[in-house]
């Protein structure tokens, strides 16, 4: 250990939840605008081909669309419940709710799969000969948009699923906390012999009591057994951010549903 120890830990500012939230929201903004570009395109083409859009929309199955809407809405509900549960230290409940979310998301994808494959089976997919031959330009545009927008949305659902698996992993894992110990605290613990100093490779170097005065910062790792009903605060933030992302996916679908399925 040397007094360079400080550089071994990333500079950590005191954990600032508000800042992390700002970051997350800004990230969501970019997602909104990513879809935003497509919504602009949709708006433009709808204004150019109003009738064709209605004819084409009539060919999409409202029932599947509505069921999928319910799936996503419910999955959003299960996510918030998971968050509340974690806040109330009900870890098991939270885990169950995340699984429920995953299930609904899978249900959504399965539905989408059947919907797409039925359409593709009928020869309706971008650039297909049937589409180009039998449909008006407006309808072609409609289907192009439909595949792009629901496709991009589906991609987000898949990403969301992966994120939830990560969150599950974090909630269940044995937490290891690396913290920076400020100088003042270090001063106070210097005397104790109960804390061990360990090299980066893991070999024990002695006790804190034996540290010389030059050391100003140490990198400490706390490993503790998870108590069944105790949460690691950082998991909460992770779940919350995953939830924000998931709700956004939901919000986008709330618009996609009427725009593609209902305006007939």
């Amino acid at each position, binding site marked *: 250990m040397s007094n360079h120890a400080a*550089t071994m830990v990333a500079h950590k500012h005191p954990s600032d939840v508000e800042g992390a939230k700002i970051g997350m929201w800004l990230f969501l903004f970019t997602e909104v605008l990513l879809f935003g570009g497509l919504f602009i395109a949709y708006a433009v083409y709808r204004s150019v081909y109003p009738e064709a859009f209605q004819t084409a929309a009539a060919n999409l199955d409202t029932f599947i669309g509505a069921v999928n809407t319910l799936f996503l809405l419910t999955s959003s509900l299960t996510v918030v419940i998971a968050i509340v549960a974690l806040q109330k230290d009900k870890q098991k409940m939270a885990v169950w709710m995340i699984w429920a979310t995953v299930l609904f998301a899978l249900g959504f994808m399965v539905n989408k799969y059947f919907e797409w494959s039925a359409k593709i089976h009928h020869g309706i997919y971008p650039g297909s000969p049937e589409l180009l031959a039998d449909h008006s330009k407006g309808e072609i545009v409609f289907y192009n948009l439909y595949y792009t927008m629901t496709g991009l949305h589906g991609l987000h659902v898949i990403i969301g699923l992966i994120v939830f698996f990560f969150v599950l992993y974090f909630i269940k894992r044995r937490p290891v906390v690396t913290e920076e110990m400020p100088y003042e605290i270090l001063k106070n613990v210097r005397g104790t012999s109960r804390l061990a100093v360990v090299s980066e490779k893991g070999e024990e170097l002695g006790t804190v009591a034996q540290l010389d005065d030059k050391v100003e910062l140490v990198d400490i790792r706390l490993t503790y057994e998870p108590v069944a009903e105790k949460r690691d605060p950082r998991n909460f933030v992770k779940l919350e951010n995953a939830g924000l992302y998931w709700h956004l996916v939901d919000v986008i679908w709330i618009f996609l549903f009427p725009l593609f399925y209902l305006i007939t």
Partner: protein
Amino acid sequence: MPSHTLDDTVQNGESYLDVKGRYTGVFGWIFSVDHKRIGLLYLGSVFVFFTVGILLGLFMRLEQMTMGETLMTATTYNRLFTLHGVIMIFLFIIPGTAGTLGNFFLPIQIGAKDVFFPRLNLLSWWLYIAGAVMALLAIFTGDGMADTGWTFYVPYSTQTGTNVTLALTAAFILGFSSILTGLNFVATIHRMRAPGMNFHRMPLFVWSLYATAWIQVLATPVVGITLVLVILERTLGIGIFNPAMGGDPILYQHLFWIYSHPAVYLMVLPGMGVISEIIPTFCRRTIFGYKAIAWSSVGIAAVGTLVWGHHMYVSGQSSTASIVFSFLTFFVAIPTAIKVFNWVATMYKASIRVEVPFLYALAFLFHFLIGGLTGLMMAAISVDVHVHDTYFVVGHFHYTMFGGSVFALFGALYYWGPKMWGRMYHNKTAIVALVLQLIGFNTLYMTMMYLGYQGMPRRYFDHLPQFHDAHLVATFGSWFLVSGLLLMIGTLLYSVFRGEKAPANPWGGTTLEWQIPTPPPLENFDEIPTITDEPYAHKEEAV
């Protein structure tokens, strides 16, 4: 009175350049999450690409020296200006000022130890490198670099056999790198200001970065998805812009410029921020109209989102749209004018020291005025019908981007270089380089504007005889510019490794970066300062 002087609190912390972390050597740099090292990483990589970009510019000029095919074929020329544009915009100037100077000085200027998300910051740089490598790969794979121009207009870009897909993917990734930087800066500015530093005590460079960051976050995703749509059309045949499938090629232009017009302010705002730092420092007095300058950055960013259609007056958009866009475009001139007037007013009753950074600030003003005022000419619809897509536009944007943003960046390197690497530059050489640049720059680009008004279209591999003499003059000017740039790069490199050691505050600056040691210690501040006064509080009596 500067009340946040830290001289007494500063202790001899080790400079960030010497600190040894988990990794050493190159890895100590490319895996470092220290904002200062990341800033320098950007600086290094940006300058590599800048050199490539200017070389391409030089080749284009050489081709234009003669008529007909001499140096290269038309296809090569078309790839060159595409690559030149892509490099200069996505690889050089957008990450150039924000990524380099922003990363290095934003945390210091607000009294923070780092940016809010240090690891995300490193990720941005890695994404930048990934995008850059991909752009360069596009040259060697498939059928070679795209030949579409940096604007990638459909349907040409969906039909050409060249490697547009890879070039677009590169641009997409670079866009994400830029978004992450912006996001990081907004969070940093909101959450990490030193106690007492409210928004109206932030240095103006920080204000300009704040406005820039918002543009990065809000406009970039739109172009991201647009480029994806072109990729989808090329790979999967989803022709959202394809007229044969009912699509509208002009919609692509709307979506492209929704980002790319605000992007020009992304390029120039940080530069303007730099100028707002340099001027009061060398005038030794407080800045005139602090709030006006600060809020005009936000104003430019805001109005800048409303005007994209001025690139499309003759595209076939409706006349109504052209008129509305023209009307709105003129309003960006107002916040810009406010900045210019306040800068000049700052020189009134000042005590001016004419050092190289200050000379660059003057050069910035000189060029940017020309660039901006020609912008007004093109904003007037009937004039733009004539000059659109001619060398007049090329002249305009080199004046704003090169004469403006890039000169501001050069000025900043002289101004902040001593702080960044702790060494001074050689004064005389720097001045000679500047003079060469000025002569070359104006000969080159003023001539281009003349050519443009005569009707010389841009992106022309060859030119008609009546344009020949002016093209010769322009090429001649480019050689002066080359010499000036080479000399400058030489001087800067020399200063990095061999220059005299720089004092902590060579210019008598008042902002926080001048109150800490040179080069700054790893965590910038031992103790986070408390701010009680405006950033440019100079003493009345010069020392």
